[in-house]
Structure formats: C-alpha cells, structure tokens
C-alpha cells in the first residue's frame, strides 16, 4: 500500500463530510457538532467477535457467518453503513450469496432518487452554494439537527461575498429555523414563511404556477396566503443564483417524493429566466456513497437483489424495511455508529461499530473499525459529487468491514 | 322503342349517367331534433353542386337517441365531392362554421375506413389550449369549450367512394303538376339510407348540359328540355304537351342506393299518373362517354 495522506481527513457521520475538525498534529475539535463529537468518541474497544454471545476468534466468526450465508434462501444485507471499500465488499458478497442490499437511511435517498430517475433534477453542489448562491430557500423542517454545520460551512455572513457580487438572503419555507440556525447565519436577512409542511407538494406547485405565470384561483395554500406566496415567488424569481435545500429524510408525511417532484417543477420553472438549483441533503453514514457504488457496479442505486444469477431492482419491495419480513438471514452493517439491527425473526450477522448494544445477542457479532477513526477509506458527500478520503486516526486492532466481508466471501468460495 | 308505361306515364328507354365521387357521412346531434336539423341544414346549405359549391351535401335521415353516440337526437348528413382533398376541406370548413356554432351541437363520424377527414382534429384549436382530447377504445373525441358548454366532436370521420349525378326528369303538362310529382318523389326518397338529393327541396329546375357558347362556362341550360325553346331549337326533347320539366338529382354511397332512390322517386312521381298531368319520365346523360355509372330507367323500373 502506498502512502496515505497524513492529514487532513474528513468526518463521515453526516452527509457534509467536514474536513476542518482536525488541524495538523492537533487533537480533535468537533467545532460544536454533536454528531461528530459522538461519532469520533466511539471507543476502539468493546470486545471481539462473538457467536451467540460467546467470544470467538475472528476466523471462527467468519466461518460461522459463511455457514449461515450458504444456507440462506433469502439473505438481506442492510444497514450498509460503510466506506467505499466496505460497500464494494458487501456487494460482492451479496452477489455471491444472492442477497438483497439496502442502506439504513435509504428512505430519504429514494424520495429524491425516485424523482431524479423519473423526471431528472437541477441541482448544485455545496461549493456552489457557498460561493455563488444569493438566495437559499430552506424547505421544510430545519435540516440543522441532521447536518449540524450546514449553515456554518456553506451559507453564512462570514463567508466571502458570492462570486459576481450580491447579498446573501435566506428564506425558510414551511417551518421556523432553529435558534442555533439564526446564530449560525449571523447578519444574513432571514424571511420565514411557515406553512403546513405535509402539504408541501401543493405549496411548491402553487409557487411554480406563480413563477410561470399560470393562473389558479385558490386564495391560500397549505396555510400560506396568496399574497405571501406571490411575494415568495417574486423573491425566488429575483434571485440570481438560488438554491433550494431540503432534507428528504424529514419528509416523513405520506408520499414525500411527490413533494420533491413538485419542488423540481418549481426549480425548472425558475430556470427559464434565472438560475436555481436543488441542494438535497442526504447521505448520512455514507448513504450517498452506497448509492454511488451500487450504481456504478450494478446500474442500480441500492434496493437491489442478486437472485439466481440475475440482478433485480425494486425500490418498493427491496427496501430493507419491507424485505425484513421476507428475509431468512440478516447481515447488518453499521461501521459508523453503534446502531443495533432492527428486530428480526431469523439469525443476524452483525458487523457494527465497537460497543454496540444489542437487544439480543446476534448469531454472529463482529465489531468492525470506524472508517476515519480506525482505518482509512472514502466517503461521498451529500451532493454526490465530492468524495473525501478518511484517514486512520488511532491505533486499532479492529478489522475493516471490507476485510471481514471479503473473508466471508472467500470462505464461501471454498 | 320498347314501351314501358306506368300509370299512363311513359318511361323513356334511357339512362342517367353518374360519376364517382368521394363521400362521407357525419352524425350531428343536439339537445332536440329541431336543433340537430338546424345545424345539419346549415351545414348542408349552399351545397347543391360541386361545380359551384365545392361539395354536394344533404341530410340523409333523422336519427333517434338510440342511434347516436351521445344518446341525443340527431341527423345523418352525407357529403360528396370530386375528390378526397376537396371533401376534407369542405367538411372541415362547414362543420367549423355551421355545427361548432350551432347551440348544443355535437358531431361524430358516420362512416369508418377510407381516408380520415379531420373534424375535431382541426377544429380543436378553437379551444385555444383549453380543448380536451379523450380516447375511448379506438375513437378519439375532442371537447372544445364554447359559451353554452362544450362542442363535442370526434377527431375524424372516414370516407368512401360515392356516386354523384344519379337523376331522373319529370315531364309534365303543367308547372303545378310537375312540381307536385317532384315533391312526391322527394318525399318517397327521403327515408332511404345511403343517398341524398342535394338540390333545393330535393329538386332542380335548371337541368344543365356540358359546355356553353361562352367559353368560360362549364355548364349551361339544357335547352333540349326548356319548354320555351321547344319550337326554337331543332333538337328539343319535348313534345307539344310538355309544359314543364323538373329533375331529381341523387348522390349515393353506392349504385344500389341510387337505384333504390331512382325507383322510389319515379314510382311516386308516376303515381300522379297521366291524368294528373305527368307525361314522361326521362333521365340526363352525356351519351355514356363521361361517367362510368349508367342507371337505365327500364332496368330499374322492371
């Protein structure tokens, strides 16, 4: 293996992949980010591999796992929190054993993906948001809890002025910003238009017609009066380079993808006269990396199954939640957090961050290293464009998930 | 000349000479039979002869609600032109000007197959973007917003080969007698399917011949049957007792339709009899060289 960069490294726990937590040679400063503080504090030790609760050597655990995998008619590999190498190994194993593959946080991912694949998308990356955007529209619940440093790093008053000039403004559509967000934004003018977020789809489409000049008669939409909507539409149209950010994982009202679809329609209408793009915030636990790797290796973004030498993709029936009820074996991969597997009727093979607390001891439990702490690796940022290199931060004996999965694969080949 | 005499009326041993035409049928409905007929009558107005009108059209028959696609009373209309292009252009224009405009109207295809003639396909644009299409199985309809609701119009109607120029002449000893016979003939033909009588009230008095002394005219007065010229021309077809002649012109979808209409019309005219002033029944032809369809009166009346 050739040399690794000494520093800096990125943080893998949310989709922002911040690379400014470490200063060369210094200790960690999580800069107020709770997710980073929590993730980076996962201790390196928490016991070794176990079979039904009893400690074993790694190769024994791998052999036991391979035996379970060989006997399974409908295995499910889920959780899927891992770096790019871990994802590669998970897909290779899935192909060998004929498994279904999905990521823990895929509900949010697929709310965006289903629209992207049906209609397309107009989007922009975090760097463009930071350096070009003059109007940020935050849609729905403030995404700060899931992306704690979103405003700090990508949109606030202390950043250099947008390229080409202009003043940064932010509009919260559907919900109030958190107090911490107001603090993050600093002097940036804030407008808030609260509304019934479960009716976001109607709200977005109504704005679309106002932007496009199409008539409709309703006096208010989702609790927002027509006058206010007209004003919002005017502001959107007046932006030079606007961005609409949302965290689709929070669109938990029924059929949140329809809201995303309506937002895309609004953005398309805006691009007839100005520039505007979406900033979908997703990808915690390298979910965006999972989408990317699965797509380049198979053509399909997760929710895919290898069955009897075929490859199948079905966002409805191959989601891990749906599939749990039909699977006879669960491989649960969570290397970024101590996330226990969901309740499951069959045997569980758990590859999780050290110290994970289980409701019941899994058939096979193999603690694995945390990428970015225990070993190097690659993760993708929320925008799917920028991949960042994680470095090893501490001495560790924990195996990489990729190694463990590959060992199982090799054990099955014998 | 072998003799055929009906009720004292002499049937000439001659034939009507007819031409192939392009034909179509429309079904026009409305809220009442009255308004269906008004729409149809307007649409088929000024449609006596292709020579001056571009199309020959008329009401074929009235339709009950059971016979129409939307369950309302209607009428069937037939239109004939020299070719499909001319037919399509006339039909689209006339439906647009006369049916679309008529209160409560709807317009449907009355014939399948052949070249499609645009109805709603062309007229939908009147809807200025508000028109709505609907496909039901293989049919497509347009709903065009208008001030009393919607103009419902099928996308297209079909077309078929038709025959124009079927005819017979009624020679009578007086004008009233001649007209009475002609009216009787028209009434007899009216209920028959597959044909129309395109001239005013189904009757034409200006029977014509091909050509004229004036180079620009294609047709001119048929002097052989003009009573006022009887003594002035060497080739008059009239005898001293013939004081008036009227012609019944029949366009039909096929030969059988024209034959049926000719027979029904002549029988009705002849029913008035020699005593009623009806002298002879004849027919117009051009010597048999111009039209491929020859309707021999003796054959038809046999």
């Amino acid at each position, binding site marked *: 293996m050739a040399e690794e960069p000494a520093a800096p490294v990125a943080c893998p726990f949310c989709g922002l992949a911040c690379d400014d937590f470490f200063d060369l040679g210094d200790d960690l400063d999580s800069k107020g980010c709770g997710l980073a503080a929590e993730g980076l504090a996962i201790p390196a030790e928490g016991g070794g591999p176990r079979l039904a609760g009893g400690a074993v050597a790694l190769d024994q655990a791998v052999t036991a796992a391979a035996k379970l995998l060989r006997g*399974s*008619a*409908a295995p499910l590999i889920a959780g899927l929190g891992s770096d790019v190498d871990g994802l590669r190994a998970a897909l290779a194993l899935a192909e060998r*054993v*004929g*498994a279904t593959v999905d990521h823990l946080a895929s509900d949010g991912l697929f709310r965006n993906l*289903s629209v992207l*694949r*049906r*209609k397309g998308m107009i989007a922009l990356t975090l760097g463009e948001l930071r350096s070009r955007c003059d109007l940020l529209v935050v849609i729905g619940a403030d995404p700060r809890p899931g992306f704690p440093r979103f405003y700090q790093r990508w949109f606030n008053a202390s950043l250099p002025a947008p390229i080409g000039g202009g003043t940064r403004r932010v509009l919260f559509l559907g919900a109030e910003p958190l107090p911490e967000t107001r603090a993050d934004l600093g002097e940036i003018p804030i407008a808030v238009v609260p509304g019934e977020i479960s009716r976001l*789809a*109607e709200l977005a*489409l*109504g704005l*679309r*017609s106002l932007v*496009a000049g*199409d*008539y*409709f*008669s*309703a006096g*208010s*939409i989702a609790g927002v009066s027509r006058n206010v909507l007209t004003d919002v539409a005017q502001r959107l149209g007046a932006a030079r380079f606007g961005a609409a950010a949302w965290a689709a994982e929070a669109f938990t009202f*029924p*059929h949140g993808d*329809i809201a995303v*679809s*309506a937002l895309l*329609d609004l953005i398309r209408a805006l691009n007839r006269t100005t520039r505007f793009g979406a900033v979908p915030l997703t990808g915690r636990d390298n979910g965006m990396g999972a989408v990317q790797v699965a797509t380049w290796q198979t053509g399909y973004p997760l929710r895919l*199954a*290898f*069955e*009897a030498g*075929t490859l199948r*993709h*079905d*966002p*409805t*029936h191959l989601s891990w939640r749906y599939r749990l009820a*039909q699977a006879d074996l669960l491989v649960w991969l969570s290397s970024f957090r101590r996330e226990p597997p969901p309740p499951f009727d069959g045997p569980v093979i758990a590859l999780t961050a050290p110290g994970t607390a289980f409701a019941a001891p899994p058939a096979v439990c193999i603690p694995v290293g945390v990428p970015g702490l225990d070993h190097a690796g690659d993760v993708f940022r929320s925008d799917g464009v920028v991949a960042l290199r994680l470095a090893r931060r501490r001495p560790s004996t924990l195996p990489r998930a990729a190694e463990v999965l590959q060992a199982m694969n090799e054990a099955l080949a014998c | 000349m072998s003799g055929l005499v009906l009720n004292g009326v002499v049937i000439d041993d001659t034939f009507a000479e007819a031409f192939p035409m392009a034909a179509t049928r429309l079904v026009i*409905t409305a809220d009442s039979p009255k308004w269906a007929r008004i729409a149809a009558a307007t649409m088929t107005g000024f449609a006596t002869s292709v020579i001056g009108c571009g199309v020959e059209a008329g009401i074929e028959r009235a339709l009950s609600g059971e016979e129409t*696609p*939307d*369950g*309302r009373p209607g009428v069937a209309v037939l239109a004939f032109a020299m070719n499909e292009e001319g037919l399509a252009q006339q039909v689209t224009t006339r439906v647009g000007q006369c049916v679309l405009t008529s209160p409560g109207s*709807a317009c449907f295809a009355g014939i399948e197959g052949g070249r499609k003639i645009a109805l709603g396909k062309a007229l939908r644009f009147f809807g200025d*973007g*508000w028109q*709505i*299409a*609907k*496909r*039901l*199985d293989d049919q497509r*309809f347009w*709903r065009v917003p208008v001030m009393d*609701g*919607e103009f*419902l119009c099928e996308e297209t109607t079909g077309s078929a080969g038709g025959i124009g120029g079927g005819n017979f002449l009624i020679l009578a000893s007086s004008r009233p007698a001649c007209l009475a016979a002609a009216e009787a003939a028209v009434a007899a033909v009216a209920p028959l399917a597959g044909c129309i009588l395109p001239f005013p009230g189904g009757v034409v008095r200006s029977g014509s011949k091909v050509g004229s002394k004036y180079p620009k005219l294609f047709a001119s007065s048929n002097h052989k049957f003009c009573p006022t010229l009887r003594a002035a021309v060497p080739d008059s077809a009239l005898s001293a007792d013939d004081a008036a002649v009227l012609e019944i012109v029949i366009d039909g979808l096929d030969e059988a339709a024209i034959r049926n209409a000719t027979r029904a019309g002549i029988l009705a005219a002849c029913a008035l009899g020699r005593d009623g002033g009806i002298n002879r029944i004849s027919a117009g032809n051009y010597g048999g060289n111009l039209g491929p369809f020859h309707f021999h009166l003796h054959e038809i009346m046999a």
Partner: protein
Amino acid sequence: MTGWRLVLKQPTGPRIDMAPVLPQRLSALAAAEIRALPLTCGNRLRPLGALFDEEPGDQSGDGPTLAIGAATARLDNLGRDMAGGTLAVEGDTGAFLGRRMAGGTITVTGSCGAHAAAGMTGGTLRVAGSAGDFLGAPAVGEVTGMAGGLVVIGGDAGDRVGERLRRGSILIGGGAGAYCGVAMIAGTIAVAGICGDGPGFAMRRGSIILGTVPKRLPVGFADSGRYSLPFLPLLRRHLARHAAWLAGSGGADRWLGDLTAGGRGEILCLDRD
C-alpha cells in the same frame, strides 16, 4: 387450443418470479417441459415442478389459456410481457401483476399486490378483490404509467392509482388510496368509493370519475360547476360495459385542474342515482 392449470404447492415461502409462465409459452410445451421450466424462487432457481402441480386446464377457449390454482401473494410478475391468451388466477397474486402486458386477458379471483399494470399497453386485467399501491403507476425510472388497456378492480385499490397514467382506463369498484391519478397525463380513472388525499394532484390531462364525494381536492382544482353535457353519457356508456356501477344518465360536479401544474384535466363527481 391447449391450456394448463398449475396449482401452487406451498402458500408461503420465498417469492417466485412467474415472468416465464405465460399462457402462450406454456401452451406450446409438454408436461415434462413445463415441470422442468426453471423459476427464480428466492435466491435460487427451482424447476416449476417443484413448486407447482400441473394438470390439463381449460381446453374450450379459442386461444391459449393458463390457470394458476391456489395462488398466493408469493407469486410476482404474473402475466409479465403477456401479449395474448388468457391467464386465470385462482387466489391472490404478488407484485407487478401484468407488468408491460400488451394483450390478452388476466383475471384474478383474489387480490393483487403493488405495481399491478405497470407499463401495461393493452389487454384487459380484472381483479375481483383489491389492488395494492401503485396500480398502473410507472415502474422505476419510467416516465409514464400505464399506456393502454383496461384494468377493472372489484374492491379497493391502494395509493397512487394511475400515477402518470398515459392512456387506458382503470375502473375501481371500491375506494382508492391517496394521490389517485397523481400527475396523470391522459386516460381515465374511475373510483366508486371514497378516495384518499390528493386525487388528481399535478394532473395534466385526463378524467378522474368519482362515485363518492372526496374529502378534499388539491388547491389547483377549480370548481367548474354542474356538468351534464353530452360527453358524460358518451363516457359512461363506454365505461359501463366494463363496470356496471358507471351506468346511469345523471350529471356530475366537475372540477378542472390541476391548474397549479398547468393542467387541463377534470375530476367528475357523479350524482348518486
């Protein structure tokens, strides 16, 4: 013509991909060949004979026929790419019933799972029981939903019936879930019972006929008043041939929309006769 009847041995177990099991295909095969036909069951290939008992089926029809006995929701992809013949399912089916069906007739005595009639372009699909979500909706990545043919559901249907429906008719004897006819492009959906939130949301064209007054319509629908124009009897007469509840001569309340999507579709709420 020949016909076969396959009887499922076990009601539960791994899901079975029934795509290869089509009336036209099986009618050309001998019993031994049918028994040997490999089917994907879970993550393995298994011979059809291990999953089904086969017996001669209806020989009276004039086209190829196939009956599936003791069917359950294990069976996915029934009638996929079917172009002709008759498929009669006794019991329930799983997902993607009639996927990309282009012709022929499928009847199901029970209920069907999600995504039935996805990509359907022709033929007739009749389900006596209920249908799952995404009936006639686009499959993944596809730009349009069902593009032709007729679907008749006796009971209820799930969410997003006829999403992005391109052409054809979906007639539902019971109620429908949320977002019935969402982003519909054309075609007809009729629902006798109550339908959930957002019927017709973002629809561009087409007709949604409701037999029961919905709780609320999306804001982009404009009340365009009582509708008793000639199109309604024309449409009802056409649809009533397939679903008797649509017969009748009454008028309707009509809404035009979804205006916020620049749409020109309609929701017709029928008078109860």
